C-alpha cells in the first residue's frame, strides 16, 4: 500500500513538472468569417502581450489559409468537385448566421471597414509580422480533398503538420483555445 502511494505521489510530482510556457495555441476548425476574426483578434492580442502564438488550422479552418488566387490543385473527380463547392480563401469566408445569400456578410464587411477593423487578409499578414506561427493540418487536408502541399496555401503558412504537433504545443501552452 505504501509503495503504491509513493508511486502515486511520484506520478503527481512528475505531472506538475511539465512547465507551461507563456504560449497561446489556437485550433481553428471553423471557416466562418466571424470565427476566423475572433481567432485572429486573440492571436494578435496574445502576440502583443508577449505570448508565443501558434494557430493550427483544420477542417473548415483550412479555407482561411487557402490561397485566394488561382485554382486549388486536386486529383480525381470527387476532390475536384469538393474544391469547386468549397473553394475557400480568406476573401471568400462567410458569416455562420445571417449570411442571407451574401447580403449579411457584405454588410458586416462594410461595418468592419467603417470601424477600421482589418480584414482577414490583413489580419493574416499582421499576425505573421508579429511572429504568430500558422500551421495547416495535413491529416484533414485528405478528407477535405486538398493536396497537402505548400502551393495550396498562402505563403504566410509556416508549416504543415499533424495532431501530435498541435498536442505537443498545447501541452506546453498556458492557454489553448478551440474555435
Amino acid at each position, binding site marked *: 500500500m505504501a509503495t503504491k502511494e509513493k508511486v502515486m505521489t511520484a506520478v503527481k510530482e512528475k505531472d506538475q513538472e511539465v512547465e507551461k510556457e507563456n504560449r497561446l495555441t489556437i485550433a481553428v476548425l471553423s471557416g466562418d468569417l466571424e470565427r476566423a476574426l475572433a481567432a485572429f483578434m486573440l492571436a494578435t*492580442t496574445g502576440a502583443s502581450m508577449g505570448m508565443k502564438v501558434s494557430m493550427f488550422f483544420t477542417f473548415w479552418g483550412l479555407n482561411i489559409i487557402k490561397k485566394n488566387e488561382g485554382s486549388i490543385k486536386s486529383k480525381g473527380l470527387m476532390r475536384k468537385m469538393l474544391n469547386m463547392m468549397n473553394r475557400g480563401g480568406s476573401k471568400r469566408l462567410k458569416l455562420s448566421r445571417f449570411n442571407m445569400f451574401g447580403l449579411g456578410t457584405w454588410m458586416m464587411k462594410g461595418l468592419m471597414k467603417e470601424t477600421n477593423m482589418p480584414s482577414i487578409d490583413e489580419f493574416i499578414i499582421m499576425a505573421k509580422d508579429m511572429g504568430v506561427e500558422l500551421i495547416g493540418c495535413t491529416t484533414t487536408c485528405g478528407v477535405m480533398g486538398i493536396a497537402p502541399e505548400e502551393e495550396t496555401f498562402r505563403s504566410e503558412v509556416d508549416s504543415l503538420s499533424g495532431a501530435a504537433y498541435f498536442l505537443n504545443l498545447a501541452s506546453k501552452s498556458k492557454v489553448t483555445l478551440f474555435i
Partner: protein
Amino acid sequence: MKADKTLDCMGFYCPLPIVKTVEKFKELKTGEILEMVGDDRGIIKDMPAWCEATGHEFLGVEEEGGEIKVYMKKTHD
C-alpha cells in the same frame, strides 16, 4: 499627466490599440511615458491588463468628452 510621446488610436477597436501600443513602445526609452488616446471603451480594462502581462507600468486613465487617455510607463526593453 505629462507624457513623452502620444499615440492616436481614435476610431480603432480591439486589438488594434494594443498592437499599435506595442509598436509605439519600441520607439520609447525605458522610463518614458506614453499617452494613448482612443475612443474604444474596451481599452480602459485592456491596457492595464496588457501592462500586467508585459510588466510595464500602468499609470492611469483620464476621460475627456469622448476621448479616453491612457498613460503607461515603459519599464524595460
